């Protein structure tokens, strides 16, 4: 699976004031309007950067450790044990098993306002086991899961950042509360809605979210082409029977699953163009001579707004009921396995982060780094341009670069691989992510979706 080739750099920063995300007015791309720092703040930033440089080995060990655990969503036990121990050792009060999820945690340090929540995903991807530093498909363990999307990098990044800031807060007696939380089961969009329901972010002022990428960029505003989704399991129950001896006594739950899928695929022509939907059959029976008593199919319904997601889901429900009627089977209560609202991040925070990106700049890449990046680009059929030496110079440019390089013009939907000049220097790892999505999302037409 060449799709799992490691991508590149880590960095990131998006983000929103409280996590509820909605759609508002589209923001015009504009240059950052962040005032220069006062000397006091500038000195703090210089001190934090020096401290983070001094923590390089610590950071590298966290990144490599979590990579080696490679655990799938809701099963991040080793990852949790490791990260929570580090947080506790550094004075954070950590609550485990939050929101009814055994592998979800939130660690808190400090007191008072503002409350800043630092999030990043922690789960791996099925069949994504891959030797790091190797530019072609070469699994550590064939068929095993692994960190094909770099979710080993974000929480280590947040921990390093928080420890540097904590030191300055202690020194200068700055009020404020830091929270580090786990993006558990992100690949299943399985946890965040439960975090909200449990009230984990009720008193949070700003959430900073980090995700791996091939350059440093921020994101804010409405994203007209970005979908949210609901993930739903449809289970049917029929009657079993010997499929040769007395098939007339049976009612096949698998028939219901197949007819639901056929129904959905006919209906697809008459759905809004922006929808994306796909399914896998998770239970198709035991063996051919036994009429399946149970069967189940798992759908993702993707749309660009909350009401449209609900409409799409209602169509799915009606088709499932129809399939049950046609086959004389029963549709069992459906299960929601995950959900995600369309993204809409905060402009003020994004612009502040972007100014800091300009201050920090990209890492210095060695010849070996560029050789790997180019080899990966070649492997996935992208232009062999290597990694950028400098981050894009305006937030709008960064946004355009990322959007265009992902094959999605910000305003039009295009499924073509990136070809724009704006992509120079960034196509490789982006392309590999694009490929990965082709392989892992069961929807070759939706490379731009983050989940």
């Amino acid at each position, binding site marked *: 699976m060449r799709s799992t080739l490691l991508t590149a*750099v*880590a*960095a*990131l920063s998006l983000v*929103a004031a*409280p996590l509820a995300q909605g759609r*508002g*007015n589209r923001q015009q791309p504009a240059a950052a309007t962040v005032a220069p720092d006062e000397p006091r*703040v500038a000195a703090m*930033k210089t001190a934090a*950067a020096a401290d*983070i440089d001094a923590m*390089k080995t610590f*950071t590298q*060990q966290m*990144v*490599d450790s979590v*990579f080696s*655990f490679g655990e799938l969503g*809701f*099963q991040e036990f080793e990852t949790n044990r490791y990260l929570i121990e580090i947080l506790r050792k550094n004075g954070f009060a950590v609550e485990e098993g939050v*929101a*009814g*999820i055994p592998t979800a945690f939130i660690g808190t340090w400090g007191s008072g306002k503002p409350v800043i929540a*630092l999030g990043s995903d922690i789960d791996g991807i099925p069949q994504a086991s891959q*030797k790091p*530093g*190797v530019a*072609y498909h*070469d699994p550590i*363990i064939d068929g*095993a899961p692994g960190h094909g999307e*770099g979710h*080993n990098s974000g929480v280590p*990044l947040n921990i*390093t*950042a*928080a420890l*540097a*800031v904590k030191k300055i*807060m202690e020194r200068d007696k700055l009020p*404020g509360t*830091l929270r580090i939380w786990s993006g558990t*089961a992100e690949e299943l969009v399985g946890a965040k809605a439960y975090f909200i*329901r449990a009230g984990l972010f009720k008193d949070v002022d700003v959430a900073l979210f980090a995700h791996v990428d091939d350059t440093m960029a921020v994101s804010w505003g409405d994203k007209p082409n970005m979908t949210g989704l609901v993930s739903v399991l449809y289970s049917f129950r029929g009657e079993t029977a010997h499929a040769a001896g007395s098939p007339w006594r049976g009612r096949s739950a698998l028939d219901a699953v197949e007819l639901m899928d056929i129904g959905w695929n006919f209906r697809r022509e008459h759905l809004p163009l922006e929808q994306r939907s796909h399914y896998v059959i998770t239970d198709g029976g035991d063996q051919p001579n036994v009429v399946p008593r149970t069967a189940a199919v798992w759908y993702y319904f993707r749309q660009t707004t909350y009401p449209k997601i*609900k409409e799409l889901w209602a169509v799915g429900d009606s088709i499932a009921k129809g399939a049950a009627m046609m086959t004389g089977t029963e549709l069992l209560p459906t*299960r929601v*396995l995950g*959900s995600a609202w369309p993204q*809409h991040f*905060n*402009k003020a*925070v994004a612009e*502040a*982060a972007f100014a*800091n990106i300009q201050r920090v*700049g990209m890492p*210095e*890449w060695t010849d070996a780094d560029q050789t*790997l990046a180019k080899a990966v680009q070649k492997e996935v059929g992208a232009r062999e341009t290597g990694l950028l030496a400098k981050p894009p110079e305006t937030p709008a440019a960064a946004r355009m670069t990322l959007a265009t390089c992902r094959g999605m013009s910000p305003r039009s939907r295009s499924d073509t691989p990136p070809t724009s000049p704006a992509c120079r220097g960034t196509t490789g790892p982006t392309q590999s992510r694009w490929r990965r999505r082709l392989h892992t999302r069961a929807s070759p037409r939706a490379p731009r979706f983050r989940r």
Partner: protein
Amino acid sequence: MATPLAHKGVTAGAKVQAMTMLDLLTKPALVEAAWNYFRDVQTKDITYEPLIRPDDKPAIELNTGTMDKYRAEMKKYYYDPAKYKTYLEQLGIEYPTVKK
């Protein structure tokens, strides 16, 4: 993602994240601007309603089978920083390896 690309990228990203936290801790106007954007733009026309229903529970049973199948084998490859400087070193990978 356990290569110098990742290590350097995470260090650079951590600096950005730390500096942005310092902005938020020292500039109340920035936090206020974030809240204003939240109220006036992000949630102006829409109220968050969960897609999960009141009776839905986290699907924590997912992936148990796959992890049961592979975990014992994966454990043999957990990174041991006490013995190896990097995970690349532990796996004996020449960096970068670009040809089969």
